């Protein structure tokens, strides 16, 4: 590895891995978390809280299936409530994982190596939480099968392929599948490591079965790398398409506040913004609790903060443009919508969203904030909240003032809405805590490639 490059200001850029690590130390340190180390109290505590919240989700969903969607706060005119808000929020969070694992790989950013594994896991779990909402918001998910999937059924009915809601099914379905494939492909060599290091036979057998008999053959590696790169290349347009299609759910309609051409890029930027906030929310406690400061260095934390700042500014531009379009369109419904958003009954939500998503992240301009994990964690938490508020504002304020004042109304979320929402957070936490218990949360084989000893000496330039 290159010596630390010193800049003119005398500032030394932190490395992507602290010096002194070898293949052995990297392997031992990461695999020990799964195989030998005792888990801290905070792990059991987090899992318990997550599990209890998951049980709350189960209760909320069971009652939903018994009573139907009437238990939620949705009604005319706000027919889309928490379900779509939470769906878009979760799907957005998922985007950072793919961005880190695919786009940063194609851009040759070596700092992705320490964070891609758990960011991909975060993607999978976020997509799983997201997928719950469109399924259950039908109230009768078993009927959704023939509404959503094109299969020959006894009624001779087929889905409407001109609807963005069907595009969503294919986009999210593909995204979940490809994310899972990408994650599993990355895991196989590490599963082989766990197989070879496991002390107990059944553990070795379990990891061995999952590792498919991987033996690190160069012929396999060559094929593996080609496939991995192609998967990254395929995931890149895919991840951009997913939130674009999600934004089509809104933009293809004719509701003021939804019918906007800026939606696809604005949604994609918002997704990456929310996702990086969540990656930071997870990474900062993880590195502190498991002592991973050698692998997730300040360089990673700072870079993620910078990505968050940039995408946050793009999102800010989106808000400004929404307001500008409202005025410039000279359409009375458009201008009323934006005026109502800023001064109407939901104005506190709007200004809270501006505070969370535009004002708070400006702290990241300060180096002190970027290099103080606790401050950055707080900023990321605020952004997590802000991105949820953004979806709330888009969905609810656009609907609650219908074209005719006689149809105006308000949205009041019920306890079942909140139980379902917080329940999915519990599900996410549970899945994530189980993940860090049974799988290596940092890609071991990729960490080996950035250890100083990994460079082949005297080889002709490649």
């Amino acid at each position, binding site marked *: 590895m290159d010596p630390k490059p010193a800049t003119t200001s005398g500032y030394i850029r932190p490395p992507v891995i602290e010096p002194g690590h*070898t*293949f*052995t130390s990297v*392997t031992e340190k990461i695999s020990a978390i799964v195989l030998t180390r005792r888990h801290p109290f905070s792990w059991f505590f987090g899992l318990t809280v997550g599990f209890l919240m998951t049980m709350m989700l189960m209760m909320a969903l069971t009652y939903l299936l018994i009573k139907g969607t009437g238990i939620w706060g949705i009604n005319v005119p706000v027919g889309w409530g928490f379900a779509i808000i939470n769906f878009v929020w979760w799907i957005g969070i998922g985007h950072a994982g793919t961005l880190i694992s695919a786009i940063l790989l194609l851009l040759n950013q070596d700092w992705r190596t320490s964070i891609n594994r758990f960011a991909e896991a975060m993607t999978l779990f976020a997509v799983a939480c997201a997928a719950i909402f469109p399924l259950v918001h039908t109230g009768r998910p078993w009927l959704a099968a023939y509404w959503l999937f*094109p299969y020959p059924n006894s009624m*001779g*009915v*087929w889905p*409407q*392929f*001109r609807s963005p809601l*069907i*595009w969503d099914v*294919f986009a999210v*379905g*593909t995204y979940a*599948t*490809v994310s899972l*494939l*990408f994650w*599993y*492909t990355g895991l196989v060599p590490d599963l082989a*490591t766990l*197989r*070879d*290091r496991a002390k107990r036979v059944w553990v070795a057998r379990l990891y*061995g*079965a999952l590792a*498919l*008999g*991987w*033996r*690190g*053959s*160069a*012929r*396999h*590696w*060559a*094929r*593996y*790398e*080609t*496939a*991995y790169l*192609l*998967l990254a290349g*395929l995931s890149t347009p*895919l991840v951009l*398409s997913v939130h674009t299609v999600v934004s089509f759910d809104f933009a293809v309609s004719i509701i003021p506040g939804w019918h906007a051409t800026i939606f696809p890029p604005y949604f994609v930027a918002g997704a990456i913004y929310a996702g990086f906030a969540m990656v930071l929310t997870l990474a900062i406690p993880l590195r502190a609790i498991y002592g991973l400061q050698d692998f997730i260095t300040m360089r990673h934390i700072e870079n993620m903060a910078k990505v968050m700042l940039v995408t946050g500014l793009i999102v800010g531009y989106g808000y400004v443009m929404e307001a500008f379009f409202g005025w410039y369109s000279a359409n009375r419904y458009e201008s009323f919508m934006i005026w109502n958003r800023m001064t109407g009954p939901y104005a506190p939500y709007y200004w809270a969203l501006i505070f969370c998503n535009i004002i708070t992240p400006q702290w990241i301009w300060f180096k002190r904030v970027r290099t103080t994990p606790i401050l950055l964690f707080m900023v990321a938490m605020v952004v997590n909240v802000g991105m949820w508020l953004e979806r709330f504002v888009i969905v609810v304020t656009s609907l609650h003032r219908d074209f005719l004042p006689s149809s105006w109304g308000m949205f009041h979320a019920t306890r079942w809405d909140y139980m379902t929402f917080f329940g999915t957070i519990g599900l996410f936490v549970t899945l994530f805590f189980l993940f860090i218990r049974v799988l290596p949360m940092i890609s071991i*084989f990729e960490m*080996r*490639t950035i250890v100083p*000893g*990994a*460079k*082949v*000496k005297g*080889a002709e330039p*490649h």
Partner: protein
Amino acid sequence: MDQTRPTYGLMAEFDDPTALVAAARQTYAEGYRQFDSYSPFPIHELFDAMKCEDRRVPLFVLLGGIVGAVVGFGLQAWVSAVAYPLNIGGRPFISWPMFIPVTFELTILFAALTAVLSWILLSGLPLPYHPVFNVPRFATASQDRFFLAIEAVDPKFDRKRTFEFLQSLGPREINDVEA
């Protein structure tokens, strides 16, 4: 060492990637073709040394993508024009711009599935048993050690001569791999 038992080949162990790449290059130059190198992470110089680029993977992925595109568009066109035509104000049944998102998603889906299936199946995986695992030291191949195994099926393989050749590469140790 017992020379009467059937053998898969001879395996040499190296300490670092540089030594393994040099060894692989010499083994190839010596005329051996049925040999393999084992490392805990991908080493690009090694792929060059062993000339083991598999050009079928990108080709299969391209074909998978094309099949996905055709299936995706064909499914929607068939559903919308043949199986369930809805006449809405005389608008065309095959309104192709509306079919692009699903066509795109299925292109990616099929290509990605092909990519994963190609690296697994072309590598002969899943394979729960392989003779190289008979060498106890081989457990470190997935951790921090580097191995090169010349297989007995290679026409140039001769237990004694190959052993001497491997010795000349300066390995840490050489093991017989039982079949």
